[in-house]
């Protein structure tokens, strides 16, 4: 009897896995969760958002496993994304956007014409201009400018493509981070990583498809929503992996429990659940059986991939890791290991880039220099390491903050600040991308003489998103999810692919 059920279930799993994922009706994805929650969630929601004509009643592999791999509609340039977000907003003027003219105007009043109609987070009245606090050189064959705050980075400058005039209309951290990661400054939208995982699933069924790593002592200002799934099913939200404590919450077996015991437990649970399926025929039960098996495998795979000690010494040195601590260097090495193992989207947040000049750590000359030191070697190592493994061509690396910083010295409370610092500035700031499909050594966009606004090649956050999706094999205008009677996109109603930085 038991064998027979077993065989029936196996046959069913195979049969159902063969049924294509395409479903009956575009409407069905908004159709709630009946007894068969999973299938109704995925029903009809193929990432292209096209209505289905196939009226097969079977459920798909995705019903059993929402992270099953899917192919994008167009040929992708990359399989994975590593997104490095410097939370707090790094100063483009001390890192990549060289403005010799600004040095000349150092200490002078900011022209009124620039201030008219502008809103700043903290600057009041007429602030003074502040010259660059770093020295710049042209590096590599591309001759792109890099400051002396980033001595290692010059080695990889020819791998990256700069966007020198990114624009955002948000100038407070929380909303700006949300905008940068969900395409909307308000809560409720899915993050880029959630979109990517929803559209593509994961290449490795033993690891989460979307992993988040944080450093700098704090989570990003906007909280977990920056890696949330918004209106997408919560299975697509980022899973925070931690360098202290359990790498994933509850992944470690309780003390005193061996792997064998856990295996036996799961085997027993699944055995009884199969009996339950024979009675109720609810496909959710089959999905649960699947998930328990995956949980067991994840318990092995996650600690393994999260263990940086197993890496050879020269690799550890290359990144400058600090095992046992929460550090950006560790996270960069982990990011490589994760994409190497097929994780779709790795999101790093490093906190501590908010350089207003109110405290030493938050100063544009001293504090920023330290932050740059923390990321310089690891990022360089990440690019070189991916390259030497042949993974860089399949991976997209994105670097940036939620906005940039003003060419003016901040004057919070209309007073002189204790240290040199810059206020939030969204008009024009620098981001860069590297990896598959990216034009190596490119630089697109230019700011005016003092780095206040774009003079050419201005791109929006939506454009950045459109470009990331393009590289993953999606047309951002077609990649939609129906929610509340409307088709939503990551790029809302805007966004153009930034062709100038594509190979």
């Amino acid at each position, binding site marked *: 009897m038991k064998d027979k059920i077993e065989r029936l279930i196996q046959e069913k799993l195979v049969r159902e896995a063969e049924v294509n994922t395409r479903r*009956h*009706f575009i*409407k*069905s994805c908004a*159709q*709630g*969760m*009946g*007894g*068969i*929650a999973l*299938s*109704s969630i995925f029903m009809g929601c193929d990432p292209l958002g096209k209505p289905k004509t196939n*009226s097969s009643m079977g459920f798909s592999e995705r019903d059993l496993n*929402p992270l099953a791999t899917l192919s994008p509609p167009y040929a992708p340039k990359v399989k994975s994304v590593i997104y490095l977000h410097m939370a707090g907003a790094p100063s483009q003027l001390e890192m990549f956007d060289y403005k010799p003219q600004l040095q000349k105007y150092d200490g002078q009043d900011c022209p009124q014409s620039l201030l008219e109609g502008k809103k700043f987070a*903290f600057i009041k009245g007429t602030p003074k201009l502040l010259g660059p606090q770093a020295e710049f050189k042209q590096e590599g064959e591309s001759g792109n400018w890099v400051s002396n705050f980033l001595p290692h980075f010059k080695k990889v400058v020819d791998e990256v493509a700069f966007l020198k005039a990114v624009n955002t209309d948000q*100038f*407070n951290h*929380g909303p700006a981070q949300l905008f940068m990661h969900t395409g909307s400054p308000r*809560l409720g939208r899915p993050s880029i990583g959630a979109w990517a995982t929803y559209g593509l699933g994961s290449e490795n069924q033993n690891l*989460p498809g979307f992993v988040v790593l*944080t450093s700098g002592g*704090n989570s990003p200002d*906007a*909280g977990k*929503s920056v890696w949330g799934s918004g209106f997408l*099913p*919560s*299975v697509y939200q980022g*899973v925070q992996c931690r360098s202290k*404590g359990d790498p*994933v*919450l*509850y*992944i470690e*077996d*309780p*003390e*005193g*429990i*061996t792997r064998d*015991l*856990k295996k036996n437990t799961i085997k*027993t649970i699944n055995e*009884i*659940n199969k*009996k*339950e399926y024979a009675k*109720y025929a*609810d496909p*959710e039960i089959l999905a649960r059986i699947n998930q*328990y098996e*995956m*949980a067991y495998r*994840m318990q092995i795979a996650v600690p393994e991939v999260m263990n940086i000690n197993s890496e050879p010494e020269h690799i550890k040195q290359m990144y400058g890791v600090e095992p046992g601590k929460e550090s950006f260097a560790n996270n960069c090495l982990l990011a490589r290991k994760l994409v190497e193992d097929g994780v779709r989207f790795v999101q790093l947040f490093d906190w501590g880039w908010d350089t207003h000049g109110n405290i030493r750590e938050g100063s544009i000359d001293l504090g920023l220099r330290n932050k740059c030191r923390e990321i310089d070697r690891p990022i360089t190592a990440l690019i070189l390491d991916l390259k030497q493994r042949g993974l860089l061509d399949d991976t997209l690396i994105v670097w940036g903050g939620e906005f940039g910083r003003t060419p003016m010295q901040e004057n919070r*409370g*209309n*007073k002189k600040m204790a240290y040199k610092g810059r206020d939030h500035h969204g008009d024009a700031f620098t981001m860069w991308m590297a990896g598959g499909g990216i034009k190596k050594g490119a630089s697109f966009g230019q700011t005016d003489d003092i780095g206040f606004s774009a003079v050419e090649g201005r791109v929006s956050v939506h454009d950045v998103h459109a470009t990331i999706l393009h590289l993953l094999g999606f047309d951002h205008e077609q990649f939609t999810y129906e929610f509340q*009677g*409307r088709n939503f996109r990551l790029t809302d109603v805007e966004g153009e692919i930034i062709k100038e930085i594509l190979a």
Partner: protein
Amino acid sequence: MKINFHIKSRYLKLVFFAFIISGCTSTGEKVDFSTQIKPILNTKCITCHGGVKKSGGFGLLFKEDAFTETESGKPAIIPGNASGSEMIKRLHEEDPELRMPYEKAKLSDEEIDLLTRWVDQGAEWGEHWAYSLPEKVDVPTFAQKASLGPENENGFLKNQIDNFVLARMDAEALEPNAPADKNVIARRVALDLVGLPPTPQLLQNFESGTISYEAMVDSLLAQKTYGEKWATWWLDLARYADSKGYEKDMERSIWKYRDWVINAFNEDMPYDRFTIEQLAGDLLPESSTDQLIATAFHRNTMNNDEGGTDDEEFRVATVIDRINTTFSVWQSTTMECVQCHSHPYDPFRHKEYYELMAFFNNSRDEDTPSESPLLKFFTPEQQKEVDKVIEWATRFGSDQLARTYKDFMQFTEPVYKSHFFKDFKSSVYDDHASVVFWDNGSCIIENAYTNEASYVLLNYRSHYNGTKMTIRANDGQGPILGEFTINKTKGNITAQFPIKKIDEKTDLYIETQNNAVAKEINILNLYWVGFVPDLPARDQPGWSDANAAFLEALNANTETVPIMAENPKFMKRTTQLFDRGSWLSKTDTVMPGTPESLNTWNTDWPDNRLGLSRWIVDKRNPLTARTLVNRVWHQIFGRGIVATLEDIGSQSEPPSHPELLDWLSLRFMNEHGWSIKALVKDIVMSGTYRQSSESTPEMYRLDPNNELLARGPRIRLGAEQIRDQALAVSGLLSDKMYGPGVMPPQPDGVWQTVYNGSKWVESKGEDRYRRGIYTYLKRTSPYPSFLTFDAGSREVCMIRRTVTNTPLQALVTLNDPVYLEASYQLAKNTREKDNVGRSIAKAYRMATLSDIEPETLSALMELYQNSLAEFNSNKEASKLFLKFDNQPTAELSALTIVANAIMNLDEFLTKA
């Protein structure tokens, strides 16, 4: 012609039926706009000819757009004359440049035929079903279904709900399932009504036949746990949380609102009252404390304390959230779309959004860190003082004056808050809270009204003695209204200073001088400035006492809850349309108003939130009752009668049982007087609900979502329920109700929020084992295991939780110490000496309420034996595993493993 099984709406059937009758000619059956034409227009035409885009000047969303002259100078539809109508002609065009839909596939012959006949028949413009509610619905009857009838105890037809359900089943040639077993239905109904399994006593009484099913239902409905269960659902809609959200995400003390919701459900407050009190409790005459607490519904919006944020921007964001939430919660309508342009599919115009905004745009809250207005809760002694003031104001003034004083003492509004002060000289707004004055500092409050008071109330903190403050009308040269000295204070205080009475609005110039203090040094922080009409009868004995009591109340330190309070006339904001939804580009001024396509406005209603709430619960509103009924149904069946819970409109799923939805809605309003308990009881008393959920792969294939209701509901439990149930069956669950959020154990390092010192301090004693509804919810970092089981962060209104099935969930119930402790307790409670089989059977029965089947028992026995062998081979393992026990044994460890396996069974995690 094969009918796709999935298109099961009766509407489509009608379409096909119409073809058969008419033989696909252009005569015959009358075409129905709402069910036959509107769906074609919505899917094929409206993207280009809708409310947003009207290509060629032709729109098909509103009637007047459809029949008006297009850019060609002629209307595109000529009623009664299809062949002369451009719209129909274009459907037949062979030239792709001319044919409609443009650059899309040609419409099918059936669709063209329908449109043609519709125009020929006069192009009658109908209303979508969602926007009108019938007055009466007939219940289907069955003459020949005796075996299913009420006289048969096991019959399907238990109440009238079943007639509607059976009618649909009949049409699909399906039979209802057998009734569920007693233990199964008892567990199901208890989980649905109180969110917990039934107590052993109740179960036994029911199983033994001592009490009837109905008596069991009544008993569950009367339990306090009922309110906790249903409030959990409502709090998702209300976006209730214990923190303010955004970057700083500081704590917000608003749990009294949560307790109000629990009580409202337990008292079965009629839904119309429930609605009015939450939306406009503050505007009711003589509003009670409870009615004020209820208004915290709309104070659950987020509050942005991040440095450098514009309070007005986030105040506007709050107002927008209130409009959207109100319409999502009560009308199943997504108003978001209309913020930027007319609705693409539903009949709501851009302007109507701002007319709705006008209702919400005049509350006192302004995104300040204090979150004023805050309702104060006075101690009995403090209350005596407060009453003294109110009595005085009533006796020597008027009822109206007394209300002004009462309100001001209770929530300190209206006042002018410092973030709106202007023209800072040697003073600065210190971002969010107060204006900092230096020596010779000044600033201006624009267009202030002093309420003809001879006192100004200041809330400030002064760091020095002897600061001279001068208040002038207009500007620095204006006439002096008041001149007084401010001395050092301990913290913030509210104090009274004399000023000249004036009776018109003026700019107020405030200046500070203190030569003894160096330049650019903070002399004082001014938080707000307020004016209350004078307390009358100054010459009467006792006045000083009353006035002192007034000031004491203002300075009283009490518990608080944020509430809604309306602007007085002199502070009213005008509301303007935002061009393309941007708050920075305002255009035409609008007045409060409700969408034309819904019920008409009764001119007796005040044009404020109170009027709006009366409009919502007006029985002519087509969406209020349906929305509630649909969502309650969804809570119980896991699927709404309209599956798109968020949206009942022209883009929603057609109802699976349209007449049932209307019948229940009418009954809910008219017969049950908006009683939610009565509605819930109707549903759980039905034969439909009481069916077994056992099924076959064929049935799932036929009806994966149980739309036809030929089986009982089977749904995974919600996040809070899974934990509550584990605690309940292991005897750990505390029945303590109400109060501040509690912090059960969660892993270290989960809370990491910038600029926020708050910490997760593990609760002690029974607070560790409270129901999930009491778990502290920090928006940027909610309780992790709830998140894993699909609970939300409550930053915005959540209409439903999408149920997922993930490995991370397995890790929670397998490894989270909460579940291990519960497993251990269950094992301990059910252990029988020297009889492992009986112990396991008991634990299984306790957890699932079912008797264990031999195969299950043998599987669990095997797990027990394996585990026992492991624990025996390693004596240390038990000590490590059972930290809760003083003398852990290998036997108890192995039994705990088995109990944990039981808590991971699908059967345990699911309501079947």
